[in-house]
């Protein structure tokens, strides 16, 4: 399959400007109007004092005041920020390792994968709102099924429950995220594994290379674009995590599970402090953009030459 990615020596089929433009235009226009437009409005709002609550704040221009206040004085924002980074790194790392391992197992040992993979996808198919409620029910201290068994097996003491023990909350949230999204990682990596060409492996075996060597020298490099894709997609989405955590913990106890999206929600939708809220949102976006750009350029610049 790799061969098709290299420009074919015979065919030089390329779309010219005339054909490209109309095909590309609707997508670009849609995004520009409905995403970029509101986005720039958000940036503008971030430089005003707009509030739906306070009648004195009708949207007067305040320049970078909101940003200054955010960066210098808002300890909750920074707490949220580092918490979210830890959440993203932990979740994505675990999801990647487990997902990769599962994909390898399925690819290597199981023939009838289709039913299996579809069943595995169930956690990912549930609406995040529903996932939040389901786990709230399962982990409730008095009648939650999982709490009951955790206590039976001694993992949890009789006198504590998961969402009211500050130390246990984030590990649990991460575990639930892993439960929900590992299937996604498995699916993508499995597809990648199944599309690998046989020839490099056969050649290596004939050269006497063992399975571990082949894994490190052939398989991993072949899968690099896919690994990058999955890490990027999960990383971005994990940063935006909101629905299920908000339903399960509300950001608490204290601020122990207050992810950036939850904080942004509070400022925008509870306090209706839209100017400041826009500044918060913009900072989140900026961080994700910077991290992704670095990651993307590092991985894809290298493979750019091989692409169509």
């Amino acid at each position, binding site marked *: 399959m790799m061969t*098709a*990615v290299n420009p*074919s020596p015979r065919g*030089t*089929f*390329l*779309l*010219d400007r005339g*054909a*490209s433009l109309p*095909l*590309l235009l609707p*997508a*670009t226009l*849609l995004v520009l109007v409905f*995403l970029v437009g*509101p*986005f720039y*409005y*958000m940036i503008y*709002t971030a430089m005003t004092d707009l509030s739906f609550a306070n009648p004195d704040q009708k949207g007067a221009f305040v320049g970078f005041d909101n940003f200054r206040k955010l960066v210098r004085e808002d300890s909750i924002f920074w707490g949220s920020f580092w918490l979210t980074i830890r959440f993203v790194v932990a979740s994505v790392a675990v999801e990647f390792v487990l997902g990769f391992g599962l994909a390898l197992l*399925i690819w290597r040992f*199981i023939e009838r994968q*289709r039913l299996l*993979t*579809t069943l*595995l*996808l*169930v*956690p990912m198919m*549930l*609406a995040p*709102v*529903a996932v939040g*409620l*389901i*786990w709230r*029910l*399962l982990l409730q201290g008095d*009648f939650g*099924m999982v709490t009951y*068994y955790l206590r039976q097996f001694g993992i949890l003491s009789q006198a504590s429950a998961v969402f009211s023990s500050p130390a246990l909350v984030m590990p649990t949230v991460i575990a639930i995220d892993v*439960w929900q999204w590992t299937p996604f990682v498995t*699916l*993508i990596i499995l*597809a990648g594994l*199944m*599309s690998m060409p046989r020839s490099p492996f056969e050649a290596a075996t004939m050269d006497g290379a063992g399975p571990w060597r082949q894994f490190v020298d052939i398989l991993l490099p072949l899968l690099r*674009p*896919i690994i990058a*894709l999955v890490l990027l997609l999960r990383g971005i*989405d994990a*940063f935006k995590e909101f629905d299920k955590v908000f339903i399960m913990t509300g950001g608490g106890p204290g601020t122990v599970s207050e992810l950036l999206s939850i904080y942004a929600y509070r400022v925008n939708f509870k306090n209706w402090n839209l100017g400041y*809220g826009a500044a918060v*949102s913009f900072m*989140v*976006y900026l961080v*994700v953009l910077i991290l992704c750009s670095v990651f993307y350029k590092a991985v*894809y610049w290298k493979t750019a030459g091989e*692409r169509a």
Partner: protein
Amino acid sequence: MDKFWKIIAIGVLACVLVIALTPYLWILLTSFKGRLDILAPQPTWFFTPTLANYPAVFIDKDYLPLVFNSLIIATGSTTLSLLIGAPAAYVFARSNFAGKEDLFFFFLTTRMAPPISIAVPLFLFFTMLGLTDTIYAVVIAHTTFNLSLVVWMMRGFFAEIPKEIDEAAMMDGRSKLGAFVRVIVPLAAPGLAATAVLCFIMSWNEFLYAFILVAFEGRPITVGIPGLITPHGTLWGQVAAVAVVATLPILVFTFLVQKHLVRGLTFGAVKG
């Protein structure tokens, strides 16, 4: 030796399946329990089932139309995403122009902003256009968010199709558009199916924009769920019933498309 590892693998996968499916199974059971059974201190695996929860929420509370609303929104946005995104992906796969990779990266960046951030501006914008409270606003919103996924995945699929095929189709006298529609698209069908499933799931499960942009009558199931959390007690039996019904269409859809799903991803879409 291989057999041994195979058994281990099957064992591990069985455990994983149990972990993945038990919560869903529990919700299924819960939807048939009365409130006292649900709140019992010891989990009740065996109980006298009641069917009362389903009619209570779908008929008395009038939640049945919500399922159809979800269907309309998800189908609409998925179709629109593919219609608009696939051609764009084709362009990325088949042409070269200055700034192509930058434009491609730009499409990815549209995923990066937290949904909350443009919620209010988007709402005000749609209100200006007079589209709030119609189905169109949320379909457009979902389409816009799904575009990045479509463009990314379909680019890989199209790139996999050898260019000779495009040329052959053109030599048969078709226009470029004809070639695209008649020849290329059917070849990329598995990829389209896989992308469609992911788009459908994301639109079906979306909450924030559906809540903000849609009228009460047109609200999808996800928006209906929090309404069952009340200060008088969360109606867990009804929540479970709604969760079960909310997931069924997706499960069915995915099962129907499963043949294409993995095969579709297999064909190199994941090469990005």
